[in-house]
């Protein structure tokens, strides 16, 4: 038996070695123009207006195109399916001159009728599709539906009025009121134009509502046949396994790159879901993926230290802030809010906890967005004595007791380590005449629920911009009364509405600069950092330009050997 045992153990070890050696020998060689990207989750559905998560929007932005887009690496609006546009004098009619000779990947023609078909489809979404959970961006930008379900806004609130096709190459979008932010929002990939034939043939809007009230799509448009005009098209998608995009032979942009593969451009993109951050890094190190997004700050030195990997920075398009709920005294006193601003050691937190990837800020808007004020912004450098003086001027006895909330179980692009940020802020506030009572809760649903329902006096939070317009930062947060910030400031609301309605870019810029300054004088928040998220790639990936809003132009990248 002893000999048999020894033989068995030797055989087992030999098998393991054989497995490993054969495994190395059988490693499939990757095609040189295939890029495998590690996503954090599977997409929900490949139908732009029905999603709002980044992992769905990533492939959607490669399959579909909108009337306008953003210049790679920036938030500057550039032509895409529309070559030019103009507004009527009253700002209610936007005329888009469309690119000619464009085809959808099913061979049908892109034209004005297709544009209007898509816009009207979104406006006429049935009840189950009208909540923010499904059509968040239509709700946010266009704010109403033709046939509203209970609780949904209707035509009286909607920004969208209608669409007219004038010939084949001109589409007129009609609005109910002036909106300068409308054009920037059209750059969102959720408003990409889909093939009307495919939308009908593959029943894009078909579905059933379960007794739980969940809408289940039953058509195959968004799962098997998402047909757009983009540089890529869907080849296959198996949830939990991989999503494969291949280059679209009918893509109009091919005309400018006739030797697509020969030039090293990526002709096959494979997305695979790897939810765990550490697993994504290891997959990159082993070569199982070629790149991934949302590199954890603690992993950046590892990527930088590797000779075969590199970091690609995404331009900062977010903000982290200390929010103030003015419905909870004494935060309704502007002197107290100023004391909070002077009492936060923002530069200290950014320098210590952001690993050189954060930019201390005095404004809510990120610097690359128009509307960012270059002068005239009130400054609140860390000054404990000044903070104490302001509290005494407000007639308060020191220390002033405040409740300060921070989230747990989360790392956000603008706030990688909330608890450390909190501890540092707590210490600086307590030197500045405050007595801080800490409160924490898991990020969702508890923390967000508490903050959004007005239960937190001071809180850590942030925002990542969705599209290249200041309204997406300022109007969303300060354009109306909310429980989160607990204030009613008609002058600020009016200024922001005026800025949003202004269609002339120069005037709009000036109005948003004024609004940015007004926010910092009023202090509903104390912003402290714009951080730089990162992607990681194998070194042979060249020419990848990261978009501030996640619309990464994979078609511009090349794969070397």
């Amino acid at each position, binding site marked *: *038996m002893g000999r048999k*045992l020894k033989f068995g153990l030797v055989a087992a070890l030999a098998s393991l070695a054989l497995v490993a050696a054969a495994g190395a020998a059988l490693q499939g060689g990757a095609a040189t123009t295939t890029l495998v990207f590690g996503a954090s989750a599977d997409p929900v559905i490949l139908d732009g207006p029905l999603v709002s998560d980044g992992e769905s929007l990533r492939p959607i932005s490669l399959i579909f195109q909108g009337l306008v887009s953003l210049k790679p690496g920036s938030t500057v609006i550039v032509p895409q399916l529309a070559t030019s546009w103009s507004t009527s004098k009253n700002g209610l009619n936007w005329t888009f001159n469309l690119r000619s000779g464009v085809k959808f990947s099913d061979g049908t023609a892109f034209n004005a009728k297709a544009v209007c078909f898509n816009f009207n489809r979104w406006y006429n979404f049935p009840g189950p599709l009208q909540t*923010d*959970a499904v059509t968040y961006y239509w709700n946010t930008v266009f704010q109403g539906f033709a046939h509203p379900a209970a609780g949904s806004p209707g035509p009286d609130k909607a920004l969208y009025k209608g669409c007219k096709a004038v010939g084949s190459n001109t589409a007129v979008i009609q609005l109910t009121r002036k909106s300068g932010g409308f054009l920037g929002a059209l750059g969102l990939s959720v408003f990409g134009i889909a093939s009307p034939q495919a939308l009908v043939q593959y029943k894009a809007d078909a579905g059933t509502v379960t*007794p*739980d*009230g969940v809408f289940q*799509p039953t058509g195959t448009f968004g799962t098997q046949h998402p047909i757009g005009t983009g540089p890529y098209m869907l080849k296959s998608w198996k*949830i939990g396994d991989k999503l494969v995009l291949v280059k679209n032979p009918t893509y109009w942009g091919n005309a400018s790159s006739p030797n697509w593969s020969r030039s090293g451009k990526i002709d096959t993109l494979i997305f695979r879901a790897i939810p765990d951050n550490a697993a994504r890094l290891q997959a990159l190190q082993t070569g*199982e993926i070629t790149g991934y997004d949302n590199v954890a700050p603690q992993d950046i030195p590892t990527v930088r230290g590797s000779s075969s990997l590199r970091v690609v920075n995404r331009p900062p398009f977010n903000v982290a802030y200390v929010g103030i709920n003015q419905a909870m005294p004494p935060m309704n006193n502007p002197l107290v809010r100023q004391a909070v601003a002077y009492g936060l050691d923002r530069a200290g937190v950014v320098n210590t906890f952001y690993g050189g990837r954060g930019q201390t800020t005095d404004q809510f808007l990120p610097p690359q967005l128009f509307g960012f004020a270059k002068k005239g912004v009130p400054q609140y450098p860390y000054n404990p004595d000044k903070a104490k003086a302001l509290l005494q001027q407000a007639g308060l006895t020191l220390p002033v007791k405040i409740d300060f909330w921070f989230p747990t179980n989360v790392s956000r692009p603008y706030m990688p380590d909330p608890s450390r940020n909190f501890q540092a802020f707590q210490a600086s506030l307590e030197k500045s005449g405050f007595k801080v009572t800490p409160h924490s809760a898991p990020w969702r649903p508890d923390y967000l629920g508490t903050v959004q329902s007005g239960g937190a006096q001071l809180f850590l939070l942030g925002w990542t911009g969705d599209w290249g317009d200041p309204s997406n930062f300022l109007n969303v947060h300060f354009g109306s009364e909310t429980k989160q910030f607990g204030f009613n400031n008609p002058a600020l609301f009016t200024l922001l509405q005026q800025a949003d309605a202004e269609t002339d870019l120069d005037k709009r810029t000036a109005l948003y600069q004024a609004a940015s300054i007004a926010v910092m004088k009023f202090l509903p928040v104390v912003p402290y950092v714009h951080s730089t998220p990162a992607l990681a790639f194998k070194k042979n990936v060249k020419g990848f330009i990261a978009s501030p809003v996640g619309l990464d132009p994979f078609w511009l990248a090349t794969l070397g050997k």
Partner: protein
Amino acid sequence: MLRFIVRRLFLLVPIILGLSILIFLWIRALPGGPTQALLGERATPASIAQIRHQLGLDKPIYEQYWAYVRTTAEGNLGVSISSRRPITTEIRERFPATVELAFSAMIFALFLGLPLGFFAAKRHGSTFDHLSLVGSLIGISIPIFFLAIILKYIFSVRLGWLPSIGRQDVLIDAQHPTGFYVLDGIVTFNWNAAWDATKHLILPAIALGSIPLAIIARITRASALDVQNEDYVRTARAKGMSPGIVDRRHVMRNALLPVVTIIGLQVGLLLGGAVLTETVFAIPGMGSWLAQAIFNRDYPVIQGGVLFLAIVFVFVNLIVDISYGFLNPRIRVS
């Protein structure tokens, strides 16, 4: 035996009913709901109220439960709030991944654990015996996720011998008729795919199987020690029976009974969700799916998924109980 099986199957009904009530009430007792999970920073009180209304979460709890029972009784486990896919479809796609992983882990644990335990008992008091005890203690003590990360670092990142994530190389185009990737490769004669799927199972199986290995080795050792000192074993040896036949016919067979119980419990636990292993190795199985659903308060997924696993657990233990009869005729007669 048939009466025994039928009786156990009937017991499923009160078990499932009780479980459905417990799960239903427990997840609704958790703070928050799916809305914040869906919208994050973008949620507003108005959107939260609207979504709660659409999902029926503002209805009385008994109305919600009745809707749930009605649809479940029709065989409809509902649709995931996050992915908008039917729960039955998700289970059909994810369960094979978990079964394949659990099965591989159990094969690894049995392949090493049984002989280790048996030979430790045969060489009771020797260095081998002491080393096996220490080894099993280490096996039980090491957290699975830690072991998984170490294995990946050594065998994938440093040595490059084995893959670190997933069930198959994305560059392999394979058909998956059954959802069990190794079996799929075999039945479709795609040997490259079968081999690749096997490679992807090695490290997760070792990580997940480490605790069952340690437990099986210890239980086998203890059980074999008991049996080999029994009178009938001593008699068999005294009658001149060869040691090999004594071990196989008398010692191993009787020592296996408690081990079979452990195997049944371990398989149930493995199927219940190798959450950490699936997360670290990015395997799209039931465990990681349910864990994410709890974070997201995806009620239909939690309700349907846990109920399904409970049924599986009951069936697995039924099979274990039936297997006793084959191992020990006295149990069969009684």
